[in-house]
């Protein structure tokens, strides 16, 4: 059988189990359903591993001829492989959370599985129909996930999210139509440019880049944290991979390319700066983390921008640095956000969870506080955690002197903006750490707010371990 087809079937376990699990209506079997889901994820990973070891994964990110890719459903390469790995990791981290959910736990499991499947397809195709179909799969999974807890905030925010998502979906469909109808069309340049801009807008919505982000602070900030965890850890991966792949495959050349580059740069800087600066004054930790997600996406966009620029100038050192950095950073981001939103679930008692709510957490829950700290340090990008290596590669690629676009008078301004943003972000991340550790004396004696970590610890510690262990492995792999 064709390798392509085998890989395509690799998402079958996810989709089939995702569709069948809700048929087992009995709530008693939730643990078994979770195990079935985990098994489906592991099988998927196994198929990808098998394909990798049998040499079916090409090392190149896109194939040389964009047009001929239309016929191919699947482009199994490093990009899709690593996005699949991160998505499966996100899925495995999300499944244990089902048991703490007040809402339909069965549906939660099923949605996570379908979301992972959609993400894998979205990250590994250039076929327009598959793009639209898998986008739909990921989107619907996201809306359902957002509305799964039946509290007021979750419902309102998920409705907003779905309506805006519908508009974004229109953007995407038009974008795909424009991009693919421009292929082979001698006067198609304008169509292509417009299509790519629409694509950026659609993806900007999906991953929350200002000004397409308006759903994000509310949804991430007030909805059920257990919904937000997979939303931020899994559902962003596919669109990011799609943006990278489509930009590389279909981008025009010459002045139009530079203008597109400028748009990407603006989006990246806006996302970083807006996210970080707004996060500074948040008192609600969950909302702070929402803005932090926005800022993190800015770094990823930086990687995509550099990849795009270096690919068009055939500067492969920078290209591999930026794409490698992006993939490593995706892993760091997913693991951290899954762990952090799970932690927020543990300390959240009312509608908001403020800095005063976690005061003295280290005294009552030492291990959880340590995990929280490590996950935050990972987002800051401190060695030896995996986030550091991602940021290092991304910033290093942006500072490559070969890319004159990112230099003004000998100053690598793009990398510099990223670094300055990283520094700004330290302030609000460290506020949380200070609150957990610094103020512990003041809390002792008072009745500490309710903190319930049962059912969450597995995910919290697993994500922390991933962040530390992968952070140690990555430099070894880089050296080899």
């Amino acid at each position, binding site marked *: 059988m064709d390798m392509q087809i085998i890989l395509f079937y690799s998402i079958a376990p996810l989709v089939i189990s995702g569709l069948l699990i809700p048929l087992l209506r009995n709530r008693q079997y939730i643990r078994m359903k979770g195990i079935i889901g985990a098994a489906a994820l592991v099988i998927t990973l196994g198929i990808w591993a098998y394909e990798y070891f049998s040499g079916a994964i090409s090392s190149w990110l896109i194939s040389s001829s964009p047009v001929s890719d239309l016929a191919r459903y699947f482009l199994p390469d490093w990009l899709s492989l690593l996005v699949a790995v991160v998505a499966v990791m996100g899925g495995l981290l999300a499944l244990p959370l089902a048991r703490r959910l007040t809402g339909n736990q069965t549906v939660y499991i099923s949605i996570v599985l379908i979301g992972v499947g959609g993400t894998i397809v979205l990250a590994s195709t250039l076929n327009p129909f598959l793009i639209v179909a898998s986008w739909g799969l990921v989107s619907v999974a996201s809306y359902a996930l957002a509305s799964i807890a039946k509290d007021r905030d979750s419902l309102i925010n998920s409705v*907003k999210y779905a*309506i*805006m998502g519908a*508009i*974004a979906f229109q*953007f995407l469909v038009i974008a795909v139509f424009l991009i693919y109808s421009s292929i082979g069309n001698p006067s198609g340049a304008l169509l292509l*440019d*417009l299509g790519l*801009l*629409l694509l*950026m*807008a659609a993806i*900007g*919505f999906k991953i929350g880049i*200002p*000004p*397409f982000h*308006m*759903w994000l*602070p*509310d949804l991430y900030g007030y909805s059920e944290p257990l919904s937000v965890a997979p939303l931020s850890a899994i559902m962003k991966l596919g669109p990011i991979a799609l943006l990278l792949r489509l930009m590389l495959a279909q981008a025009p050349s010459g*002045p*139009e390319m*530079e*203008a*597109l*580059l*400028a*748009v990407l740069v*603006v*989006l990246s800087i806006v996302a970083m700066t*807006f996210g970080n*600066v*707004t996060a*500074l*004054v948040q008192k609600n930790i969950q909302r702070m983390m929402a803005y932090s997600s926005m800022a993190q996406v800015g770094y990823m966009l930086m990687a995509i921008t550099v990849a795009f620029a270096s690919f068009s100038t055939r500067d492969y050192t920078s290209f591999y640095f930026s794409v490698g950095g992006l993939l490593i950073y995706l892993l760091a981001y997913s693991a951290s956000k899954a762990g952090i939103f799970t932690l927020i679930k543990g300390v959240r008692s009312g509608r908001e969870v403020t800095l005063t709510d976690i005061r003295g957490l280290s005294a009552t829950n030492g291990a959880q506080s340590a995990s929280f700290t490590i996950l935050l340090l990972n987002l800051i990008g401190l060695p030896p955690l995996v986030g550091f290596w991602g940021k290092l590669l991304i910033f290093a690629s942006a500072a490559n002197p070969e890319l004159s676009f990112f230099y003004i008078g000998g100053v690598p301004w793009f990398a510099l903006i990223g670094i300055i943003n990283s520094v*700004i972000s330290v302030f609000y991340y460290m506020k949380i750490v200070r609150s957990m550790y610094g103020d512990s004396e003041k809390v002792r004696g008072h009745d500490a707010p309710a903190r319930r970590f049962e059912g969450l610890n597995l995910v919290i510690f697993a994500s922390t371990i991933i962040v530390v262990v992968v952070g140690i492995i990555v430099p070894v792999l880089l*050296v080899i």
Partner: protein
Amino acid sequence: MNYLPYLIWSSPFVASAFVLALHNRKAAGGISIGSIAIATLISAYELAGLSGHPVVLNISWFSLGALQVNLGMLMDGLSTIMALVVAVISLLISIYSYRYMEDDDGINRYWFFFTFFVGSMLLLVLSNNLLLLLIGWEGTTLSSYALIGHWYTDEPERWVGDADRHTLGVPAWSTPSEAAIRAIVFTSLADVAFITAIGMLYSVSGTFSISVLASSMPHVLTVMQSRGILIPFLIAFTLGAFAKSAQFPFHEWLVTAMTGPSSISALIHAATMVNAGVYLLLRFTPMFISGSLADGLSAQIEPFFIYMLIIGALTAFMMASQATVAKELKLILAYSTASQIGYMFMAIGASFFILPTVALFAAFSHMISQAIFKAALFLVAGVLIHQFGSRYIGDIRGIWKYMKYSSIAFFLAALSLSGIPPFSGFWDKDLILDLTSSAGLWAAYAVGMVVAFLTAFYIFRVIVMTFQAGPRGEVKEAKRSMMWPYLLLGVAALLFGILWPYALGNISGRIYIAMTFDSIIKWVPAQVVSQIPFNLVMSVPSVAVSLAGIFLAYFLYRGGKQPSISKGKAGGMFGAIYAFLYDRWFINAVYYRVFVNGLLEVSTLLGVFVEAKFFDGIYHNYIPNAFARVSGRFRRLQSGDFDRFIGLMFLGLLALIIIFLIFLR
């Protein structure tokens, strides 16, 4: 490719990892001794297999862009002989330590840093790469720091200097933990200059490789000269070496380093680490001289060698003068170490003016002699201090009666130090003096003679005082496994001296010497090596002053006498001189008054005015307020108004198109 030489420095490192991992009191010593024995065997094997040409080994280590760093080793006569000397002395001292440190609480820590030190030192010696050399260099600094402060609980019997004595209001004693910090501060201060100079060297030559630098040195010197920083560059590059080898003005750290165990004083602060600076200079001075000759920069480079002569002579004299009045046994030996290294610096300084190969050989030879006899002296001192329970020579009595073998070792080593023929110390010191007089450097010659006199005096002052009869206490001879290492070193000092002229005179000796330096000094005609001036008549004065020193010591201190001056009771001019010498020329006190207290003052001022008023104002008021304002504006965008959301999405799309059009030229 031959990977065996890499084992020389990696086996002690591996052993240190094992010591740390096993954390077993019993196994630690055995593992360490074994690993050093391996290093010794391999370096002996490599030395035996060395032909006239240097061997350069390379493993690519890492590359960052254009920066290519190799795990290179340079094995020529200089580095291989040095490595063997380091390995053999470390081996003997490690065997000595096995019993000496047996009952110590921090024995694992001791062996970890011991082997870590040996590995670093061998890496420093053998590496063909300045970065790698620097790693070894700083590794020795670190382990030196840890071992000086080994007894970090600071019991008074571990101190150096008299408790309660103050010099110019500054305490004159040092605790182990303080001494450790002093050592790392003094050496690291100079290393900053060293590292900077390595950076300059790299930016000009584009390489860290020592063997490549040897050929590109003329270019480097020319570029430095054209920028007008030739002398500053040379001084910066060698400043680390000056600090490591305890030359003025960095000599103070070595004095207080005596708070460490005696075995460590023998290993690090007498025989190996303090010689690292000399080694670095021996490695690079030939390049500087040949480089300056090749590009006609002789006149420009001359001040550097004069500076080296002055520093060497000053240190040699200053430290020898202080040793004549010191009361603590190890302190005397520490002064003596810095003083003898001063001789080596004088020789290296003189190498510019006369027969460079010979002068550098003299320094190298003296370094080896010094390592041997000084290690023996320190090891015996360790036993004596332990047996008599006091670090003051006034309390040590009758060692000839109760400790025959230790006395013999001490006596042999002391004769070598005094420069009595036929001991090794005689040949190289005489060669150095000979060279300075032949080159017409009369001031250096005169200082050298005075120092020779002082040296013989202070070491025989120790011998006369400690050998005379005294009350019998619990004193007994050292355990055998501790004794034979220093006995062997004492005999080696004699044998090395007896063999020295043969090695020099016959063909094999010539090859030996040529091998040492031929690798870099290609411009020196080979026959020069055989022209080593050796004039026995010339050595009569130096032997005479040494004998004079010995007799003066005997005359002043015989039969338990103590001249009133050395009791610190004499008044008037003698008392003033005594205090001046005993308080280490007041240098330590001045350092504390000027640098330490001065910095504290500045720090207080900075803390009160600059930090609290200025920076706190910016960081805690101005910047946060500004961000809060901006951030508040951003947040107001997020109103929750749904129409606005959708409107913004379309406006955003429009904005993207507009940005695209703006940048589309």
